[in-house]
């Protein structure tokens, strides 16, 4: 009964319904833009604040532009012979290599957990997921003490290795593998005599690319922003990632002023690579591919 009614309305919408629909049509866009504005507002603050010198930062009204963007940049880049660039390069290394390895590891593990049934599968999966229950702050000290037993502290590896395992990444990859890699394609490949490694490498993983891009992105950001782990693991400031480096500029103790302008400018510069990354990966991030794959 209702189907008839609804169908009727769908075929010949009354003028009134149409106008309500078009009024509502603008509303969703508006809501979404409002959300975007809320999220961009503090970013705009950073953008404006980075143009101010320290006097202007604390005396002018919030959104009036300052005059010192280039002076701030020059000071930041000149700080201790360009140490800032070293920090950015370190962050890129930790986050880039870490996220790449993490995506690969998540992909392989997620595929195995989704597509094979084997003894211990549930246990492994649940244990990995439970890993997120232990806060990073708590883990940092034992991780440090264990790393120091094998002489790995204050090395790039000490930050890189713990970043590679991402329970959430494995979970996502598993969901993707389940949805995006059709059972019959795998079976067909097996029938053709393809080895399991080959099926994984040339059939399953390529199908999972959009999902793995998401894992890569999430993991990249979380490594880029991780503070506790490098804070504990690293002593040598030439190995610091950019968050830790900026933190040392901010916390110089009572006897030295915090270098607010450098930190604000540094924040701006260090967020730019992430924005660039998002925009680049946006292309691969066409998640619709997934439903296409399911249909195929």
């Amino acid at each position, binding site marked *: 009964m209702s189907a008839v009614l609804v169908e009727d309305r769908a075929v010949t919408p009354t003028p009134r319904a149409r106008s309500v629909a078009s009024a509502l049509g603008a509303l969703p866009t508006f809501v979404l833009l409002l959300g975007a504005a809320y999220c961009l507002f503090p970013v705009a603050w950073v953008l404006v604040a980075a143009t101010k*010198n*320290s*006097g202007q*930062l*604390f*005396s002018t009204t919030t959104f009036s532009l300052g005059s010192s963007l280039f002076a701030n940049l020059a000071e930041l880049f000149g700080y*201790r012979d360009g140490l800032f660039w070293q920090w950015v390069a370190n962050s890129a290394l930790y986050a880039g290599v870490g996220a790449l390895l993490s995506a690969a590891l998540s992909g392989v593990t997620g595929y195995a957990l989704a597509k094979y049934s084997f003894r211990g599968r549930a246990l492994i999966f649940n244990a990995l997921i439970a890993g997120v229950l232990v806060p990073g702050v708590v883990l940092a*000290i034992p991780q*440090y*003490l*264990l*790393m*120091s*037993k*094998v*002489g*790995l*502290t*204050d*090395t*790039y*590896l000490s930050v890189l*290795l713990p970043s590679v395992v991402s329970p959430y990444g494995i979970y996502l990859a598993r969901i993707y593998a389940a949805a995006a890699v059709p059972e019959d394609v795998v079976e067909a490949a097996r029938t053709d005599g393809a080895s399991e490694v080959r099926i994984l490498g040339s059939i399953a993983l390529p199908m999972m690319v959009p999902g793995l891009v998401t894992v890569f992105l999430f993991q990249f950001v979380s490594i880029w922003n991780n503070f506790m782990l490098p*804070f*504990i693991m690293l*002593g*040598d*400031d*030439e190995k610091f990632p950019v968050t830790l480096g900026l*933190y*040392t500029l*901010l*916390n*110089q*103790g*009572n*006897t*030295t*002023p*915090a*270098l*607010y302008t450098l930190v604000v400018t540094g924040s701006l510069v260090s967020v730019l690579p992430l924005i660039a990354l998002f925009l680049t990966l946006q292309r691969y991030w066409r998640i619709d591919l997934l439903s296409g794959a399911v249909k195929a």
Partner: protein
Amino acid sequence: MRLDFAKKAVALGLGLALLAGCGGTEQAPDGPVELSFWAWAPDIDKVVDKWNADHPDVKVVVSKQAQGDDLVTKLLTSAKGGNPPDLAQVEFQALPTLVSNDVLADISEGAGAARDKFAPGIWDQVTLGGSGVYAVPQDSGPMMFYYRADLFEQYGLKVPTTWDEYAQTARDLRAKASDKFLGTFSSNDPGWFAGLVQQAGGSWWSVDGDAWKVSVDDAATRKVAGYWSGLVAEGVVDKSPMYTPEWNKALNDGTQIGWLSAVWAPGVLKGNAESTSGKWAMAPMPQWDASAPRTGNWGGSTTAVTSGSKKQKAATEFAVWLNTDPTAVEALVTESAIYPAATSAQEALTKPPAFFPNQPDFYTQAAKIAATSSGFTWGPNVNVTYTAYKNAMGEAITAGADLAPALTKMQTATVDDMKANGFTVSG
């Protein structure tokens, strides 16, 4: 048992990585020695460069870290892990904590001779009253009163010499300009409060034979807390923390026209409120007893050698050089803008800080004030007392209540922590 297993498993798993060449960097015994140095003083690497230029066989590598408390955290962790840096910048109040955790080496052999370069009160802080020497003093922070000379004149205010006068000046200022404050009581700066307590003659820790005596809520401390309770309740001083963007703005736009600070204040003022250059002046602290002027210390740090260092001799040599060699100390003053702990270096300061061109005798006055510093014994868990200060004072201020109960909480927290760790606490 379990730990051993852990060690082996990690060693097995990560040993491969070691083989790949990412492991520690053990030094060849006959090559040049390399010393790692964790510090936070600005531009201290430029001072170290001078050492490196003259000492090709002992190279010091500075790693800049976040300030004092964070550095203590990292030092404790790295010492537990068995690979601390060779040298570290350590604040005075952190020395007992680090010594108690066996992080610092006794360098009396190499550094003992430096004793007469420092005022006895300063030197006592690095010996902890015993026969060992655990660090070489780098800088000190005798407290002083800073005020906006131009605004004082504008409002017809006189520089307060006693705490009673300070209170009256604060009231007078509010009466003349209701949007301005003479100062703030900061729940975020226990070091500042400890300095005020030192001035009033308080003593939070003392050693009684084999036991510690803790008196964080002693009469002098109660006097200081009671005084500020009154001012906060009356609303004549601000009660927001220092070192926030808000406070920076207040220094910039003249909302705060005074600051009870220490000798290093010019650097902070320059960084936070550059537009007010030449408008500030420095005077001795307001006094409890004007006939016997005293001051406390806020800030100040040392160069320490770690017990885990395998190159303690070279490290000690560097620590002594950094803080007593005339060129080194001069560089510390000009590059890192510290107030040197070495007495001869204090006397050598003749030019005022660039931010105080209006006060040519700045450092002569400072040296006079520094000479009135009160001694103070720090305990092995200053961090606990400091955290309790931040929590309890913040709570008391938001509740609009008396600050005295906060002292009780600080005392209880300090004693409980020491007892829990098995220290013998008397009294």
